[in-house]
């Protein structure tokens, strides 16, 4: 990237970063990330650094056909950004490397670390622990250069895109779902309250109309997953009840 223009790189090594292991308490999702029992570590600071960047690179080796436990913990700690996406201004390059092992959906798993970001490229690099042949080395080089160029180019574009029909449908569904859950997920309902979309943007009349039709159908299809309306007799889904 430095061959193309001026780029400043900052590396965050999860191995050395002060990021605690997720305890699975679900506080961040329900009550906001400030209520995380590990809130005194550096996660919030790292998130702010990410939000201040133009581009993000997420790099993990493939262990047992997926991201490492270390990267998975980072993703788990940012799980609340699934409910409340935030990295809209960032372009993301996903980088996986391994000695040849790949897993179904490995890139998808990695991408969940940056909810809201536009994933501009998925780069896989073959890095076995034995020396590679010339041909494979050249192929790696080419793939790396392509990824770098793509990230550079897309980072120049700082406009937020207008949502397509599917994006808008997902937003409206998430909003409807989270507004219903104001008792159980107050932080998420607060995030969605009064929002037209995740960020300030124009919504085309076609998107509005299509979603007006599709949303009720969608809600019907997933009604088993939805929380009970208030005032109804609640039955816990757990088998111990």
């Amino acid at each position: 990237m430095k061959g193309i223009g001026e780029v400043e790189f900052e590396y965050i090594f999860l191995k050395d970063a002060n990021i605690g292991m997720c305890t699975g308490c679900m506080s961040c999702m329900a009550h906001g990330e400030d209520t995380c029992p590990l809130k005194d570590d550096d996660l919030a600071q790292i998130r702010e650094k990410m939000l201040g960047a133009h581009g993000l690179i997420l790099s993990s080796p493939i262990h047992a056909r997926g991201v490492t436990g270390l990267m998975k913990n980072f993703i788990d700690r940012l799980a609340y950004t699934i409910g409340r996406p935030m990295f809209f201004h960032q372009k993301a390059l996903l980088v996986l490397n391994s000695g040849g092992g790949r897993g179904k959906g490995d890139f998808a798993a990695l991408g969940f670390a940056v909810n809201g970001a536009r994933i501009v490229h998925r780069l896989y690099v073959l890095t076995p622990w034995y020396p590679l042949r010339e041909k494979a080395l050249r192929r790696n080089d080419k793939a790396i250069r392509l990824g770098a160029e793509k990230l550079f180019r897309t980072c120049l574009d700082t406009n937020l895109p207008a949502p397509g029909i599917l994006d808008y449908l997902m937003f409206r569904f998430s909003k409807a779902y989270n507004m219903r859950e104001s008792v159980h997920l107050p932080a998420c309902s607060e995030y969605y309250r009064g929002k037209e979309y995740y960020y300030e943007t124009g919504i085309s009349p076609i998107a509005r109309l299509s979603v007006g039709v599709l949303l009720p159908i969608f809600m019907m299809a997933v009604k088993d997953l939805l929380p009970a309306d208030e005032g109804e007799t609640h039955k816990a889904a757990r088998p111990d009840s």
Partner: protein
Amino acid sequence: MKIVAIMGSPKGKGSGYTVVREIERHMNDLGEVEFEYIFLKDANLGMCKGCFSCVPQGEDRCPLQDDRATIEEKMLRADGLILSSPIYVYNVSWLMKNFIDRFMYTHHRPRFFRQKTMLVLNSNGVGWKQAFVALRQALGGASIVHELSVSTPAYPVKNERAVRRSKKAIQIGAEKLYKACLNRRLPQPGIKDYLIFRVFQGGFTEAKELVPACYQYYRGKTYYYEAKIGPVKKLIAAIALPLVGFVAKHLL
């Protein structure tokens, strides 16, 4: 019958524990079953360093001198295994992912052939497909007899039918694991299993200086375990293996 349950929740006894206890109850209705729970949260199992010593050099070279070997022995002594994880962000928890990473060498040198394995996931309702993909990678050689997904949202759900359905699913899973564990015979290898075995055996023999531990494991074996390989399978392998070798040498 002995079942070892690996509990991958960082909470320890969360919703997943309730589900596995329910499985235990159903299995005990069918016969005498002893359950042992290993809570990864409390287990002395360090975070994988990614040094890659275990695969080529052998798992005893792992720089983490913790309870990995003890846990492996416990699993190998069991008739059945349950791997339980909550779904976090469309995947297993970091704790379960680290367990999978730490036992990765069992894919290069498979061993859990006698253990019937059930995968159990719980979540608010999404991510099953992706998380099962990850969880299936846990133990090399284990035959997965059932994959159970149970919805355990943090809020009460509206639909009583859904509640009944998940209770029924737990019962079916428990019965399936029980029945599978009664069968102690090792499975007869199919042609695909046999070919995979031979490809790995050939590859590791070719690269024996690079992967001494794998070479040792495969040396002189007809199959992973004592099994009869018919002449047809042998013939197909004899034709297919040189082809695989050619492709690996010249085209990759």
